[in-house]
């Protein structure tokens, strides 16, 4: 764990509920039923289609869990909320941030709940001059940072891996529920596949609500 950045949560998890919800949406129909992101080979059953920004209809299916999460905070980002899956350890998520610059309030925190397999989240020192906003989502909003070096050196190259290792500040194993800060560069390494994790990205959180305060709220309610 990395204090104040990625910490385990002391909450009850109904794994049976999560598995049953995943079973309801799991599909082989790429793009029609789940998102793929090009540079990120993860497959995501989230609340909206990344290419169009239109709802997937999963918000209703996922209501048994989302209704609980709305008690913590009423706003969540549709694109990032849902099941993230990988059927091989080669399907990592490259180093990035998650940001919401268009919301009224600036803070956002993600809860990650492991369902199947295992993974690790690596965190990296984040300097403004080394990252940029590479693209906008279907709603026209920038939503993540990427290292310039990834574009220059190439994703997965030994040179870029060295760049990342030089900046690594710590990691957390996703074997229990956790709350993560997402404005610092981080990547997900799948260490056991098939892997599935539930993520709710709460956003539009007032700037004076700290990570620790929000964590306490999550633990009190869930």
């Amino acid at each position, binding site marked *: 764990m990395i204090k104040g950045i990625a910490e385990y949560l002391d909450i009850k998890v109904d794994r049976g509920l999560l598995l049953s919800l995943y079973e309801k949406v799991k599909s082989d129909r790429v793009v029609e039923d789940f998102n793929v992101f090009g540079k990120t080979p993860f497959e995501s059953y989230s609340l909206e289609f990344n290419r169009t920004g239109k709802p997937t209809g999963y918000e209703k299916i996922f209501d048994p869990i989302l209704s609980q999460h709305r008690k913590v905070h009423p706003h969540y980002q549709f694109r990032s909320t849902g099941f993230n899956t990988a059927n*091989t350890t080669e399907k990592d998520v490259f180093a990035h941030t998650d940001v919401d610059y268009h919301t009224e309030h600036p803070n956002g925190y993600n809860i990650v709940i492991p369902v*199947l397999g*295992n993974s690790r989240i690596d965190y990296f020192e984040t300097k403004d001059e080394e990252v940029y906003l590479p693209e906008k989502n279907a709603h026209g909003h920038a939503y993540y940072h990427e290292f310039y070096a990834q574009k220059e050196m190439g994703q997965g190259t030994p040179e870029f891996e060295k760049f990342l290792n030089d900046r690594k500040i710590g990691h957390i194993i996703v074997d229990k529920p956790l709350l993560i800060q997402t404005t610092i560069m981080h990547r997900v390494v799948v*260490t*056991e*596949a*098939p892997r599935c994790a539930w993520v709710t990205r709460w956003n539009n959180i007032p700037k004076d609500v700290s990570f620790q305060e929000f964590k306490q709220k999550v633990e009190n309610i869930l």
Partner: protein
Amino acid sequence: MIWAKEFKVSMPENLKLVAHDYIKNYNYEPFNTYKSVVNSKMWLIPPLGKNRIRLDDGGASNKLSNIRELVTNITGLALEEETPILAIWRYDDRFKHCPVHIDDGGEHTGSIVTCISGSFKLHLHKHDDENSDIIETITIDKNKLVALNNTIFPHSVEGQGDLIVFGTSKQTNIKEYFNEI
């Protein structure tokens, strides 16, 4: 039920060292010992004599005890203790491809696969037939352990290098272990 689980791993160097030393000092098993081995060179630790009696392995099994413990810790699978604990299969220019097959499970149900050199592709096939379509492929390298549901799903292997196969305990409940949605 799923056909395989993958695990990322940093394998201790002594797997490679012990295996290489063993290959230098022991003969490979006679060709055509197994249905799917054909004429590949395969070393078993410990080696087998007539009627599959375990022969002396010069302490190789003991030297691999830390590896076996690690494999169990990572995969959650107990390993075979009675029959050969490990096989080294050499894939080279004369043997590049292990044909499509389903293991009969006589000695172990479930295998754990990695390699100490080269790289391999483990294919899942639609049917137990050499010309059967490939449904899915897992790349095997020295940083990966693959738990294979080998007695249920048709599979084949291609590649070059030395493939390592651990047998899982006969007590393994594969329905439970590979029971994912």
